[in-house]
């Protein structure tokens, strides 16, 4: 090989200084971009550190287990058992998921598979509006509209028809687990529906067409082709909805009744993790009380972090396999 060629190859691999530093602007711009990316990573670290720092007095006082397992909550006596909050959060989120997942997925099926294309924007617009409503406005509506309706109509009706179940016994108070679950169901519907829509849109139309060509009706094509293809993604949508339901604060605080007890009846007043933080944090006077509430936030953070990671991976697994095709 000619010596000139060797030099040329070496220069192509690693350009000499003079050629490399074409522009000072490029270097600083590059550095700036990396700075921003680093900043976001730092934010993630800072979130965990700040939570941990605020929660530390609680961990000095007692073990995590003692306040997860105890059900007696009395800040004045420094007795911190968070079981009733965990129970309330789980029950309300479960009600929300049971109601929202079928409705949200049916909504998505209607929009993607059934609705004529002219109707689609009319149907999807309300979903965006619903997602935009602030949580405190949901709470206001829940408190003055939904709770009275529950007290006078739905709860007496459920008590009469399904009263043999312990879930639907007791006086119809209006405020309680059922109210919290219902308001959460409304609030996570946009999340579940819009991600299901996203998932169903990535189903290759060849699958649908194959089913239809074999003589399937439209519903059969959905059931046999679209839904199995999008199953993982829809599971992800449900998990993302669950993540939102677990952390939702204001609306639940306003309708759940705020009483730190555990009841089997869905009509009874309960409490949830975010609600107790919202109600007590600003007024907490002792370092231990603040610490325990921050520790509950840390638990909430851990659970939602895990849920969101899994959900994002599931949704990505479906939507990425259809690499970047315009939906």
């Amino acid at each position, binding site marked *: 090989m000619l010596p000139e060629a060797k030099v040329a190859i070496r220069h192509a691999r690693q350009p000499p200084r003079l050629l490399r530093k074409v522009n000072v602007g490029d270097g600083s711009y590059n550095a700036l971009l990396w700075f921003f990316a680093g900043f976001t990573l730092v934010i993630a670290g800072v979130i965990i550190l700040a939570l941990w720092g605020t929660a530390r007095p609680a961990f000095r006082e007692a073990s995590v287990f003692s306040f997860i397992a105890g059900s007696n909550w009395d800040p004045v006596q420094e007795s911190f058992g968070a079981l009733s909050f965990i129970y309330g959060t789980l029950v309300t989120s479960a009600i929300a998921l049971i109601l929202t997942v079928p409705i949200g997925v049916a909504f998505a099926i209607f*929009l993607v598979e059934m609705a004529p294309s002219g109707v689609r924007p009319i149907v999807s617009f309300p979903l965006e509006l*619903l997602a935009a409503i*602030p949580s405190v*406005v949901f709470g206001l509506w829940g408190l003055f509209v939904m709770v009275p309706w529950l007290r006078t109509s739905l709860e007496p009706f459920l008590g009469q028809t399904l009263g043999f179940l312990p879930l639907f016994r007791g006086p119809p108070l209006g405020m309680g687990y059922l109210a919290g679950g219902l308001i959460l169901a409304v609030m996570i519907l946009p999340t579940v529906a819009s991600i299901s829509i996203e998932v169903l849109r990535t189903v290759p139309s060849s699958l649908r067409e194959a089913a239809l060509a074999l003589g399937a009706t439209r519903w059969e094509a959905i059931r046999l082709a679209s839904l199995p293809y999008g199953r993982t993604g829809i599971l992800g949508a449900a998990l993302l909805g669950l993540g939102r339901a677990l952390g939702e604060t204001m609306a639940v605080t306003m309708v759940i009744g705020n009483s730190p007890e555990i009841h089997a009846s869905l009509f009874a007043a309960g409490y949830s993790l975010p609600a107790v933080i919202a109600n007590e944090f600003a007024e907490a006077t002792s370092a231990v009380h603040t610490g325990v509430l921050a520790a509950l936030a840390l638990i909430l953070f851990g659970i939602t972090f895990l849920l969101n990671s899994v*959900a994002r991976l599931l949704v990505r697994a479906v939507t990425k396999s259809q690499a970047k095709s315009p939906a």
Partner: protein
Amino acid sequence: MNRYLQRRLANVVMTCLCAAAVVLALIPLVSLFWLVLSKGAAGLSWSLFTSLPSPVGESGGGVGNGIIGSLFLVGLACVFGLPIGIGTGLFLAERGNGRVGDVVRFITEVLSGVPSIVVGIVAYGLVVVPMHHFSALAGSVALALLMVPTLARATEEMVRLVPSSLREAALALGVPQWKTSLRVILRTALGGIVTAVLLAVSRAAGETAPLLFTSLNNQYWNFRPDQPTSSLTVQIFNYAISPYEDWHQKAWASALVLLLFVSILNLASRFLSRSRLRGA
């Protein structure tokens, strides 16, 4: 033939059920908008926007300090949140194809799911504890933390939509990379980024939970970042859970103001993104 009819019937039934789900999903939305409009409109008055809250039983009074407080908080949050969010999005779109990009993208996705009340405690630990008192600054830090992940993801999406032929054309003309990125790519994506900013602002304006123990509340006007500040959302919460009828009335009226603000921002962003699509 009988079997065929059964299958057709199943098809019709399922279509009806799915349509019913759509109707069912719309009931709360319609009910909510209708009640906020009708109950809120009754309480609208000029003094709602200009006066300080009045004591129970006293007529008049408003949530002027809450409205100003909310705007102040969101504005301050934008000062912190917009550069970091948009910068991170730009990084993800321009340099984000490697390992680091994947990690940053994953972190922003997961951070966007962190409950807002948790972010409030983070801001409490970061700002309130060192300063020893509640402040508007703490509230806006919380709101900024909530804005960054959504902004970053939206910005990335918008920048990636810019056709690579534009970049290549600029580079071929000898424009340096940084100038191409800022003057060509970013400018082309600007409409989409403005849309994302409007949505982020509307979300931040509606947040209550992270403000409860960061910016707290204030009965008076406040324009200092180191003092507690009232906000429209916290006012609505306090009025709604109070036992007084005239405060409930104020809660509905304030909710109408908030809902209009949020809806207008959303409609504006929708309009912007649509006109951008038509232009492309």
